[in-house]
């Protein structure tokens, strides 16, 4: 009788309790990428790709056709020819730009002694609560959660959620991102924490330390996540006036995070041929 009278209240209470337990559990323990999250992300990947392709197609259609509306009859043929040539030129330009970008990315392999996995960005989320990228490579391609992600200008973040065919990249500027870094000039150590539109905040640097605007910031290699010497950004603002033991320092990342199209995931250290042979034996 009691259950029958209060079944809705019990039902609602149970559902809210379940949601609260889920939230508390995730806040307390870092659960990584759960099976449910993997399935949802895997299901959403083709939809996201489809939307991206549609947006690109609409943009292209807009560029190609809308500006032609209203032209005189006698110019139509000429415009068609110009349009075709422009399209061809655009294709070459686009190809050239892509080649240049990829060349820059590939040059990372000469700079760092690591194995890289190239990947394309298929989605971006630069909202107030999270700054992430969605890339089209996943576990099947050898990616593992925690791997550093770079562009030609330097480090942009690390992998957080890795599914079978896609992954999420937590950007440096996300409030949940913390990277152990060094000031290249003075070897002063600190933690670069994401600060959204302000870039990163360099924390725990005492006021007596020599840091000035324009100093280059690199990874310190002290954490197991990032190898030493990856470019992170440049000090953009230093304030020693405020109360407290530490300076207030902002770091602007080298990479333009809003326009990233391709990235390189730093997978593992390159094995020298001799070492590899030895291992095989």
């Amino acid at each position, binding site marked *: 009788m009691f259950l029958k009278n209060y079944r809705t209240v019990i039902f609602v209470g149970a559902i809210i309790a379940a949601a609260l337990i889920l939230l508390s559990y995730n806040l307390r323990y870092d659960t990584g990428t759960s099976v449910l999250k993997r399935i*949802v992300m895997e299901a959403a990947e083709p939809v996201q790709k489809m*939307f991206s392709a549609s947006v690109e197609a609409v943009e292209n259609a807009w560029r190609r056709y809308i500006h032609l509306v209203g032209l005189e009859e006698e110019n139509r043929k000429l415009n068609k020819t110009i349009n075709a040539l422009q399209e061809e030129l655009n294709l070459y330009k686009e190809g050239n730009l892509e080649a240049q970008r990829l060349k820059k990315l590939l040059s990372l392999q000469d700079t760092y002694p690591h194995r890289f996995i190239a990947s394309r960005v298929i989605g971006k*989320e630069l909202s107030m609560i999270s700054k992430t990228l969605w890339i089209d490579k996943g576990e099947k391609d050898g990616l593992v959660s925690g791997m550093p992600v770079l562009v030609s200008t330097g480090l942009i973040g690390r992998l957080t959620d890795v599914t079978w065919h896609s992954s999420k990249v937590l950007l440096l500027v996300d409030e949940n991102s913390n990277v152990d870094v060094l000031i290249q000039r003075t070897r002063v150590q600190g933690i670069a924490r994401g600060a959204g539109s302000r870039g990163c905040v360099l924390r725990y640097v005492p006021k007596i330390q020599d840091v000035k605007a324009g100093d280059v910031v690199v990874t310190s290699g002290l954490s197991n996540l990032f190898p030493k010497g990856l470019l992170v950004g440049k000090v953009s603002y230093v304030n020693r006036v405020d109360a407290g033991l530490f300076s207030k320092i902002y770091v602007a990342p080298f990479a333009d995070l809003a326009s990233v199209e391709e990235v390189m995931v730093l997978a593992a250290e390159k094995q020298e041929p001799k070492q590899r042979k030895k291992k095989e034996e």
Partner: protein
Amino acid sequence: MIYYILLPLNAVLLVVLQITLSDIFFSGWLTLELSLVAVIYAGFRLDFVKGITLACLMGLTFDCLSGAVPGSFTLFYLLIFLLVFFVSLRITSEKLYLIAFVSLVCSLLESFVLVLLYALVFQHDLTGDVLPVLVLQALLTSVISVGFFYVMSRTEGLRYGKTIQAPQRTWTGGVSPKT
């Protein structure tokens, strides 16, 4: 039954659409909260079980596809659904200015709880940076919800000859007689 089969797919579609549109129109700095509007619509128009399922699924999908803490939006959407469902017992969803007001309140409430959660758990003070954005976002959500309700009521009118808000929400047993 078809509703429950199509719901997960629609939730994924809506959330991905929401992320894509936010990226196109606002470069991500403002979120078009279509999923929240869908939850508010469910609170006004759907019966209890269908609505609560929708709220749970929308929240879970948004949790999985955004960078939010898993479970946070599931909880927010559930609470917002219950709030709107309770409000819908008192007011009619035909009055669009009321819909706009409820959506504004819900969006502000969601943002407030989010800021509070980040402040309490991660010690991230989001208030300085995002307060104007939150207000803009809430206004945008209320405008979208008015459009959404208008379109849906026209669609319902075309399909059924009248709108389908359950008139029997009397809390006798807690759920509408349909369930």
